């Protein structure tokens, strides 16, 4: 299972950020206006922020062409390098999608984050830090519910389903509106293939997402 995030449908409302905090009972961070692009806040993922909408002004010939948004979260790689990097084997990739962990085994070392091509894992706690990141709301999946961020999304910019189906939806969209989309499915091959897939009107690589 996985996500398909279609930036052309995203309205940057950040319902996903709050819905994630609400379901996962994550505290708010004390933030301030930091001069980032658009309205982004917090500044980065953290032990209490598992997903984050980033804003991007697409400029062409020194003029605004579009205002895009993209959702940063764990990519839930098909074969996650964090899993191999973890010295205690605390990280597990479930066959149906989520990359999860066992808190009792986590040492709070930075190895998983260093291994992650997307720089996702963060840690909670100073004395006894533990990895924190998107869990794909595995507890909801278990009950047959979609992840909290997917459910909250007003426009269906983030949808949830089987990766093969999502890939085929993504391909259909790229083909049916070639003008609208940058012709690329991000995540199809990146990181060895991820279960979070993106399609977008602009190149994600240009805004700091790593190339394959």
């Amino acid at each position, binding site marked *: 299972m996985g996500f398909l995030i279609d930036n052309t449908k995203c309205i940057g*409302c950040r*319902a996903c950020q709050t819905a994630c905090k609400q379901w996962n009972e994550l505290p708010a961070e004390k*933030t301030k206006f930091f001069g980032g692009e658009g*309205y982004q806040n917090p500044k980065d993922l953290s032990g209490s922020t598992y997903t984050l909408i980033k804003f991007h002004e697409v400029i062409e010939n020194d003029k605004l062409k579009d205002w895009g948004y993209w959702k940063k979260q764990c990519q839930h790689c098909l074969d996650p390098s964090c899993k191999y990097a973890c010295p205690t084997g605390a990280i597990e990739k479930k066959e149906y999608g989520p990359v999860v962990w066992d808190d*009792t085994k986590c040492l709070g070392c930075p190895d998983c984050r260093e291994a992650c091509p997307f720089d996702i894992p963060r840690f909670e706690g100073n004395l006894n830090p533990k990895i924190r990141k998107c869990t794909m709301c595995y507890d909801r*999946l278990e*009950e047959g*519910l979609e992840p*909290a961020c997917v459910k909250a999304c*007003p426009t269906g910019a983030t949808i949830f389903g089987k990766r093969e189906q999502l890939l085929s939806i993504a391909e259909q969209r790229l083909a049916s509106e070639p003008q609208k989309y940058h012709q690329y499915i991000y995540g199809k091959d990146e990181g060895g293939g991820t279960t979070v897939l993106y399609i977008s009107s602009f190149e994600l690589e240009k805004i700091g997402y790593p190339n394959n």
Partner: protein
Amino acid sequence: MEMNRRSFFKRSVFTLGTIISVFGFPYLAWAEKKKFKTTLTKETTTICPYCGVGCGMIVSTRDGKIINIEGDANHPINEGSLCSKGSALFQVVSNERRLDSVLYRAPGSANWEKKDWAWTLEKIAKNIKDTRNRTFVKEKDGQIVNRTDGIAQLGGAAHDTEECYLFSKLARALGIYWIDHQARLCHSSTVASLAATFGRGAMTNHYNDLQNSDVIMVMGSNIVEMHPLASKWIMKAKEKGAKIISSDPRFTRTSSIADIYTQFRSGTDIAYVGGMINYALQHDRIQKNYVVNCTNASFIVNDKYSFNDGLFAGYDPIKRKYNKDFLKYELDIEGNPKRDNSLQDPRCVFQLMKKHYQRYDVKTVCNTTGTPEEKYLEVCDLFTSTYPEDKSATWCYAMGSTQHTVGVQYIRTYAILQLLLGNIGIAGGGINALRGESNVQASTDMALLFHILPGYLASPSPDDVDLKAYIEKYTPKSKDPKSANWWGNYSKYITSLLKAWWGEHAQADTEGGYCYNYIPKKSGLHDHIHLFENIYKGKIEGLLAWGQNPAVGGPNSEKEREALGKLKWLVVAELWETETAQFWKRPNVNPADIQTEVFLLPACASLEKEGSVSNSGRWAQWRYAAIHPGDPDWHGDARSDLWIVDALFKCIKKEYLKNPGVFPDPLLKLNWDYGTGDEIDVNREPNAHYVASEINGYFIENGQRKGQVPGFAKLADNGSTACGNWIYCAGYVNWSDAEGIDKTASNYVKNELGEFSNRYAKRIAEKDEPKAQQLIAEGRAPGMNLNWSWCWPVNRRILYNRASVNQEGNPLNPTRWVIRWNPDLAEGKGAFEGDVPDGPWAPGEKHPFIMNEEGVGRLFSAKLNDGPFPEHYEPLESPISKNPFSGQMINPAIILLHQGDDLNKELNNVGSNNKFPIVATTMRLTEHWQAGAMTRNLPWQAELMPDLFVEISHELASIKDIANGDRVTVSSARGEISAYALVTRRLEPLVIMDGTTKCTVHQVAIPWHYGYAGIATGDSANILTPHVGDANTNIPEYKTFLCNIKKA
């Protein structure tokens, strides 16, 4: 609806169950697998308290604690989704900043003291009585006025309908006529404008109907940010091929999903849309049959009418007023307006309009607005391409349109254009006035406004000497047999209202007729701006503020804060300690200098009480209490506003019973019994169902209630019916009148008064209704959801839908029809099917716009104070020195307080474009809500938008040496504020003409949510905005003023 888990929540399942079991859930990923958080919880449905979209939510509680709140997947509007505010509702309850006891601030004190309800209510009641005794005026200039000069009331658009109704009722019984609320500030110009055009002041269509549009024009609104769940239906329209246009002074999150974006100078919308009207007329892009049959295009205007250099005939420059006698139709012998259906007569509305808008050529328009001509023509072409019968376009607008000195006329331009294109009354069409508060529709309907009574009945003036004279004056007349002239029923609605309020005391011969004299008379304007000007002058000594925060939301807010300090007493009912509640200890003031006695009453949040709310599509939806007093998540002494207003009334009545005081009759005889007895009991909540049933109305026989009135057609003017608000009649009816017999249905109610159908609680979505699906398969437009909640009037989802069919009752657009005549229905007599039609008549029997005495939509409207056709005038503060369209710089009919008396002049400076060359506009953010208390107190929302900022262009930033993230000072003639600079390409300087000179105009945009209370704090943008309003409703001009900016 309270049900066990798996009834609502689990119906939202993603189809994963089988897959998961294949892979062997459950597993242990965490050290100890947590119990699923909503296991064994109680579920309560509710409606989001933020904007006016009306999204459904499910609240999961366990043992009186709220466990989870998320979208209701069965709800047809949001289908389970929410925006960030809705997703954060949990923190409105789970929040240590909530008030949990009454707070009292003695005059001059620097501190709050905790008090109990009994002491507080008695003290407030004594204050009210004392002020009322001293300031009550029975007669003025020999005419009965029966009003209290010294007390004002504000709020509240976020309250339940039943609460609003009681605020309205109690205020009138107290003689309060200084009564206003958020609706004045947000959409008062909508109601005036749409009512003057179509007959009703409401959003014509509804959110789900956006999916039926071919073109969605968003101008005057930032729909995606302010009404995020509307985006669901815009996106569905897009998927079907619809085009979206966003025209806005700055590129917003709405613009980012638009097909065309145009920028323009704030304050020039009439030029912009006037040019579109001209384009439609010049290119013959009008729906000719519709224009002839459904509008007054063919009506001949009498020869007194003229228009010359920005002024219509009948203008008095001293009074700054028009004489509307110059705007009448030419009548035939029978007294009906003369018509020329060929539309060729030079004095017909069509030709006068054509002449008027010829002046709005592309060049003049674009030189005024700063929009590139090529882009502007793209917009004109796309929007007017919807003139054929099988095309639809809708216009979505909100505060960007309403809050101008020409706000009413902005909206008139949209209405005129939509009538010309035949886009009113159809699916995917209409004028969608987007409401920003969850219940501002009903708070307006319930008349928390000085100029109306519930149901849009006029607030009487002193020369409306008795009920007979009142009815005579306000009942429109028509001699056209095809005009339904529905307002001809005026007498029934006012009489039934008086019966609802004064019950058996209201008899034909009592107090001017049915206690008519008990209603306080208005004299002139008592709107928000004047209300605060009068507090400032010391003429009003007490203010009741129900959930309204003018210290942030009021225009020229520093003057309004100063004014608060001149009050003798102030009552604020709130969830939080708002800026208004703590104005006496705001930064830079000494509490010892402020002698106002302040009572801060802890109120309940939306999900802690029961009642209904009406969204902007007029859907009235019922909410339930998820927790109750004493529950672990309950905030101490907090009580619903329904409880507060009920208890307050009883305390006031007690005071008057002890010692009658001045004119006690309206209070002592007030019909008031909501199930709590005579004593104040903190554990006895009034029954919202009793209130809802009174609003709907009931029959009276021999002084006794005899069942609910099934619909407003059955209301009478002989005292045999009582009805709190005629437009809500049919919403809360006898169970036997209701559809179905299933007593487990969500709308079934049984209480001491009987068995009812509470139609606001209906929960059958269209997707679950085979009959609706069948009609949709036959071409009926989807989205009406006729059995989900109930909407006024009489559950009609698309207003003016008679205009969508021809004289035979066949839909003009058979692939997206709203109503159609089916001759087989009603035992062969025939009836309309689909939506509820505008009136029961057979096709062709009546004209389509049944609320207008002409029976048609008004392209030319004589109802307004500033002219029959919209005309461009510059804002009060303009960056240019000459109006490109005429010699009239500003709206000639507005009130200029800065030229008024000395106290009006104080703190009312107007800025010049030499000193303040930059155009400023205020705006809102998805993440915050209105004056901010409901989001700036939530840690999650504060995290998303922690600080005040101002959006400025790269070019302006470069001129002023400002970098992104710098602190800047923004100043206007009223004051200055400090903010972060957000430097963006989403704003660009505009090139416009000032006379013959080309000039560059810079614009900045500032969110107005911030204030000095809460977690996320910042200066209030309204410190900068002026006390000036529109010519019809005095809605403040928040959206355009002049400023300057510098690096701090």
